[in-house]
């Protein structure tokens, strides 16, 4: 019986040490992801704390030797969905029809490439891009954040979001298109892009 209890104690303590060694160093990347997903520091803070508490509670479910960052990331994503899905502000989300129209215009007016210049967006701020990112549907936002901000490889992103690499590729393409349309809208509002 003594051995049994000693085993419980040492395993509890060992698990804790292991958790702090393995999981805590990934706090930065998770914080940045939380910031981009929630769009504000307060919600990012809550999301980060909730994620680490859950991860600690379920640490014995983590399969040793697998990608701990991907595991933590999935916990954060699920926590985010549970906490914020219902609270998503509808007016800020992207209208698919608008985007489709915008794209048809771009492809049709292909001879006029005036709207496709990087300098038109030169004055956009971090906040504008964050807001634009926030407006993307979750599945597109996630891949764009992980690829373009965090610099992860397609293979890593595929592991994070549990989908094939081909899906990452197509979501990135659609996500970037949606984002472009939103950024174009902001640039126009701010007067950097001429109104036609």
């Amino acid at each position, binding site marked *: 019986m003594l051995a049994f*209890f000693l085993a419980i104690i040492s395993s509890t303590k060992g698990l804790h040490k292991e958790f702090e060694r393995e999981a805590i*160093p990934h706090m930065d990347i998770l914080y940045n992801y939380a910031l981009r997903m929630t769009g504000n520091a307060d919600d990012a803070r809550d999301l980060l704390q909730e994620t680490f508490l859950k991860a600690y509670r379920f640490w014995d479910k983590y399969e040793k030797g697998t990608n701990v960052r991907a595991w933590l990331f999935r916990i954060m994503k699920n926590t985010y969905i549970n906490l914020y899905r219902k609270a998503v502000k509808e007016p800020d989300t992207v209208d698919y029809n608008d985007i489709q129209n915008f794209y048809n215009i771009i492809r049709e007016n292909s001879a006029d490439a005036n709207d496709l*210049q990087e300098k038109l967006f030169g004055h956009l701020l971090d906040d504008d891009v964050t807001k634009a*990112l926030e407006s993307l549907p979750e599945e597109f936002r996630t891949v764009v954040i992980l690829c*373009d901000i965090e610099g992860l490889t397609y293979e890593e992103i595929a592991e994070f979001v549990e989908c094939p690499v081909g899906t990452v590729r197509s979501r990135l*393409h659609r996500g970037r298109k949606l984002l472009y349309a939103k950024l174009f809208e902001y640039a126009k509002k701010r007067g950097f892009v001429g109104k036609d």
Partner: protein
Amino acid sequence: MDCRKFLELISEAVDDRLQSDLKHQFSHHANICLPCRNEYEVDRITKSIVRATVHRREVPSELYYAVLTEVQKSQSSQRSWLEVIFGEAFLNPAVALVALIMVAVGAVSLLQRENAVPISADKNIIAQSINNFSATMAGVLKPTFISHDPGDVKDYLAKDTPFEVDVAALSGCDWCGGVLSSFNGVKLAHVVYKIGGEGLLYVYQVDINEAMHGTRISLPENAKASLAKTGWYFEQTPDKCNVVLWKHKNTLCAAVSMIEREKMVALLSEKGPW
């Protein structure tokens, strides 16, 4: 390459993942098909805007410590559950012994982080302490060991230091942590206290002989004179950081904090080393 294949490969091209032969076919198609090229440009520009505009942020130190504290608390609550089992089995003396061992184990945690202490360019102990305090506030300098019990932190640091480490039970202290490092071959101990409502208090600790007479680290002459005469030294930086130096046995301690001078002195006086 046709338009369908081109569209499929746009992301890979933007992220520079195409092999040279595909890359060649891709650019060839882009040159002859304007709608496709525009679509590629959209993705390329978007990535470039995001990369140029959005900057990654470090976890604020206060949040980093809040997460650690929450995890620690959660660990304590798991231990309570074990204690319940032990409580019910109190008749067994062996279990009582184990319970004692468990209490002795305490709320201790080990954080293994590499490069936990930034390397300073300045030999001056006061400058190093101020830099380390800033690094602590920014979350760059992080304790490798945290506990609610100062005794645990002292034991942790004492294992590998040739001088007597000063870790005290300061009033209002939520937890404290420690980390070891060396500078020019001189062993250093760093203690961080989280004082509820007041913020962080950082204490740099080093062998007093190295500090007063050594060449590998240095101390300004006025600080040396004050320490020799009164046993302590006080300084305030232009951005209102308070620095307090004192001797503790064979150790020189340098505390840095944004806590007001009177409060800081009162806090440190309670333990009465000077």
